[in-house]
């Protein structure tokens, strides 16, 4: 073999200068030393959808806790005269230049509301005379008559004589930012209060599922043998039962209410968790450190709590994160068919089903609860996916 010599080596070029070699350079670990959990956190922080989801969830939880306290309205106070107001008011100017006044026509319930310059609703315009025969309502505003004619749809606001009408500015409803519902309650506060209930149901139900699933799966996996066989057969039977039906049955038995919903959802969906924990424990319990702990006389409870469960926390965490959105889903589903929390309490499900009742006239009322549920689903799904990728990068697709 002939030695390869660089024939045209430009040795005077500084780029070809020999680097000085330090003896211990090979031993230096260039990247910072990180534990597994630091790695997980770093990987999660790089996942943009997951972080967006996490931030959304944190903001939502804060809003759900503190929002209702900060609002001047209460979730249960009704004001029927201010029912079904939209968040955006298309105003009309009446009274001409001297007695200029902004009014808003609610075409759904044929009422006229006063609106001030800032966009605050000052209240129902008094003195509406209802003329049922000609299908119109007449108000006295600024010395002239304003007529709302609803004999043909859509209703038309008109004035005969007087200074005339002119289209006013379109304003944000500053009194009720999200408008009001059919009983005149503030939609924003009810929305936040609904978030409180929906999230509480989801978290408590997931916690109950978590405790039952981890205990059941852990015991089954650790004890093994006949106990495992029997316990897994039971799980097999439970998992072939359509669980939504059982949540419904539980709700029928327990009667509607917040605690019933939490109990019903919490006691039913632990099967997946139990299976995952069992699978993990089965592989972990044959590890040497478990044998070592047992040799040293550690009791079962200690080995479970200190050695086995901490090592299965990854999959458990992912399963729990995925359980929360399905609990929100099921709760809203239950509330939608009338088996959820009892009024005046509100959850996103009851808010949606209330909005569906008035869909024809006030379609905007559906927007807020539907968007809230969908965004929360996005957030939890993204966070769950991100957590799974962060905990086990090999699973990433």
């Amino acid at each position, binding site marked *: 073999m002939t030695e390869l010599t660089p024939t045209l080596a430009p040795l005077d070029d500084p780029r070809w200068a020999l680097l000085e070699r330090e003896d211990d350079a090979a031993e230096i670990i260039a990247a910072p030393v990180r534990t597994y959990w630091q790695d997980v956190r770093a990987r999660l922080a790089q996942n943009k959808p997951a972080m967006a989801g996490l931030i959304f969830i944190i903001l939502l939880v804060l809003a759900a806790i503190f929002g209702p306290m900060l609002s001047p309205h209460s979730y249960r106070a009704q004001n029927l005269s201010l029912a079904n107001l939209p968040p955006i008011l298309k105003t009309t100017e009446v009274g001409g230049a001297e007695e200029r006044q902004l009014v808003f026509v609610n075409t759904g319930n044929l009422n006229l509301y006063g609106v001030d310059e800032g966009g605050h609703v000052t209240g129902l315009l008094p003195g509406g005379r209802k003329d049922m025969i000609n299908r119109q309502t007449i108000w006295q505003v600024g010395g002239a008559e304003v007529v709302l004619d609803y004999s043909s749809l859509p209703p038309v606001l008109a004035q005969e004589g007087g200074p005339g009408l002119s289209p006013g500015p379109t304003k944000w409803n500053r009194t009720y930012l999200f408008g009001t519902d059919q009983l005149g309650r503030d939609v924003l506060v009810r929305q936040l209060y609904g978030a409180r209930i929906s999230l509480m149901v989801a978290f408590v139900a997931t916690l109950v599922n978590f405790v039952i699933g981890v205990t059941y799966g852990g015991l089954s996996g650790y004890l093994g043998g006949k106990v495992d066989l029997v316990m897994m057969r039971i799980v*097999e*039977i439970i998992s*072939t*039962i*359509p669980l*939504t*039906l*059982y949540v*419904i*049955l*539980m709700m*029928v*038995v327990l*009667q509607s209410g917040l605690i019933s919903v939490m109990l019903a959802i919490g006691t039913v969906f632990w099967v997946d968790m139990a299976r995952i924990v069992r699978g993990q424990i089965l592989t972990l319990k044959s590890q040497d450190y478990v044998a070592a702990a047992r040799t040293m006389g550690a009791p079962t409870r200690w080995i479970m709590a200190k050695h086995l469960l901490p090592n299965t926390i990854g999959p458990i965490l992912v399963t729990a994160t995925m359980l929360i959105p399905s609990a929100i*889903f099921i709760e*809203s*589903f239950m509330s*939608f*068919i*009338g*088996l959820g929390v009892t009024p005046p309490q509100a959850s996103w499900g009851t808010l*949606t089903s209330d909005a*569906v009742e008035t*869909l*024809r006239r006030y*379609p905007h009322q*559906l927007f807020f609860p*539907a968007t809230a*549920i*969908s*965004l929360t*689903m*996005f957030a939890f*799904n993204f966070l769950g996916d991100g957590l799974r990728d962060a905990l086990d990068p090999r699973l990433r*697709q």
Partner: protein
Amino acid sequence: MANGALSRLPLAYVGQRLVLMLVTLWAVITLTFFLMHAVPGGPFVSEKMLAPEIEAALNAKYGLDEPIWRQYLNYLGSVITFDLGPSFKYPGMSVNEMIAEGLPVTAQTGLLAVLCVVALGVPLGVAAALNRNRWPDTAVMTIATIGAAIPSYVIATVCLYIFALRLGWVPAFGLDDWRGYFLPVFALSGFWLSFIARLTRSSLLETLDQDYMTTARAKGLKRRKILLKHGLRNSLIPVVTIMGPVIANLLTGSFVIEQIFALPGIGRHFVLSITNRDYTAIMGITIFYAAFLMLMIFIVDMLYVWLDPRIDYRRRA
């Protein structure tokens, strides 16, 4: 079954599965029965104050004056003979009649939804996988993510408002017109369509990476043949596995959909009997649902053997 599927499906295993199904069904009946009897107050309590004699007569008529174990055995006996008993709230109507009345509607919409899930979800997933990281992939994944996050009843009401009330393209309720099927089927299949599209995509991507795909290409097989015979057939296995639960969920999802579109199906009967506290109807329909869903999962598991030659139940039986 050309690939010897029958020999890999020994009768002993099928029998074992059937026995497990019967045990589960018995558990469902028992649990349902005792749950319904744990409801505070009898079935006639909510009505206007009944005279004690009338209540006693009603109890005697429906056998509610007997001890509970006797009632349980009676109920079990009648369920075995496919008799789910009379409805408490609609005199003269039996739960069987309720189910017979609602089943065609539920089955039709449900079947169409399953078809929609498979016939749209799988091709969408395939298109996404074959165009990985190009626009079809992005489009399908965006739709799938949105579809998985929006509850079916929201999809249903929004579609109802836009297409039926605003545009008037389809009727708002009922199935008299063939166009009436569009919205319920779409709303019902939305979530699972997204799910199946995502599943098909990730499964096909995994399959495309396998060595046997390279081998097939190296042998010079046609692209279409490689995709259909080697790629798709293997990547559809997880899709088929999930079809049992999908059918189950489509049917339970129909409670809300039938309510919104006013379809006279079983789901609507079920929700109505919940609001009416019609206990025998709740019990009967629950048991019917459970039996039906278990049967579906069973059938899917059996079909699975035919699709995947690696599955061999002989070892497990």
